[in-house]
């Protein structure tokens, strides 16, 4: 089969996850979009997520390339012992940006 025959005719492209960076900050997940390739994904990301604001950088990654935990594994992976309160930073004011466990 030639490459042309292999191309689907009504393909809306792959799903991509978009991460954007504001000046001096880490990249954070902004959302997802569809695009046929990385270059177009970056273009689209610029239009969909980065037209306003102080964005200084963009990452895109195919959603299919992200290895992720399953919601069903939540208990097994993340449920820590509830009895060891001393492990949690409860006893002094949290620095900015840090979340309660």
């Amino acid at each position, binding site marked *: 089969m030639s490459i*042309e025959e292999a*191309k689907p*005719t009504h393909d*809306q*492209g792959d799903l991509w996850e978009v991460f954007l960076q504001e000046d001096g900050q880490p990249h954070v997940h902004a959302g997802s*979009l*569809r*695009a*046929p*390739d990385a*270059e*177009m994904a970056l*273009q*689209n990301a*610029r*239009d*969909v997520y980065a*037209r306003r604001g102080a964005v200084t950088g963009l990452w895109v990654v195919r959603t299919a390339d992200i290895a992720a935990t399953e919601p069903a594994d939540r208990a097994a992976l993340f449920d820590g012992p509830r009895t060891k309160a001393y492990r949690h930073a409860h006893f002094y004011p949290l620095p900015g940006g840090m979340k309660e466990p």
Partner: protein
Amino acid sequence: MSRELPAARATIVELLLRLADDRLVLGHRLSEWCGRAPLPEEDIAVANIALDCLGHASMLLEEAGRVEGQGRDADRLAFWREPYEFRNCLLVEQPNGDFAHTMVRQFLVDVHADLLYGGLEASSFPPLAAIAAKAHKEILYHGRHSGAWVLRLGDGTPESRARTQAAVDALWAYTDELFAVDEAAEAAAAAGVAPVPSRLRQEWRMRVEAHLREATLRVPEARPRVPFRGRAGRHTESLGHLLTVMQSVPRAHPGAAW
């Protein structure tokens, strides 16, 4: 009205209107895709580019009105001129066609605008140099977008290639006008206000042809010039339809502010 202006000012007004009307009409054409583009992402992209173009038009029209000194602001110039008073080139008023057609039109314009606005940044008329510097950054992005689509559609499926080639063939004759030189263009160039349009031709052809080849598209043979001249106010029928839509709200509600 501009007849009464001193020659230098009349030249600047004429030049600003040509630049502004290219952006205004192109921006309106792109806005016609709003809600209809092939992908939601593309809908947003095309609408953004349309807004950029309208923004450039607005700055240029405002400046044209200021230099003219007859009390016409950007809205007055955009919405209360007749088709024969518009100075845009015919390429930008061509109907959208399919998405390939729109992207080819955009690409042909974007390469030209990149060269033109690069030159205008060095304009001897400071307000224009300032507008050009701001617009040029956005135009570079427009060219990346349209250029990327021309590549993908040209070197895509047999159908996308056929449609893209048909667009190139249909629009090619209208590109000639981008480089046409008349008295006003010569006067503007002599005053250092804008580059001579014909000087941009070689670089434009080189870039466009290289890109079309990369997109596996055929570069059309040179064609006879189209028998209209948008710069002189002689337009195709489609500009009248476009302006009827574009001007309908302000004309239905004269004096309304928004």
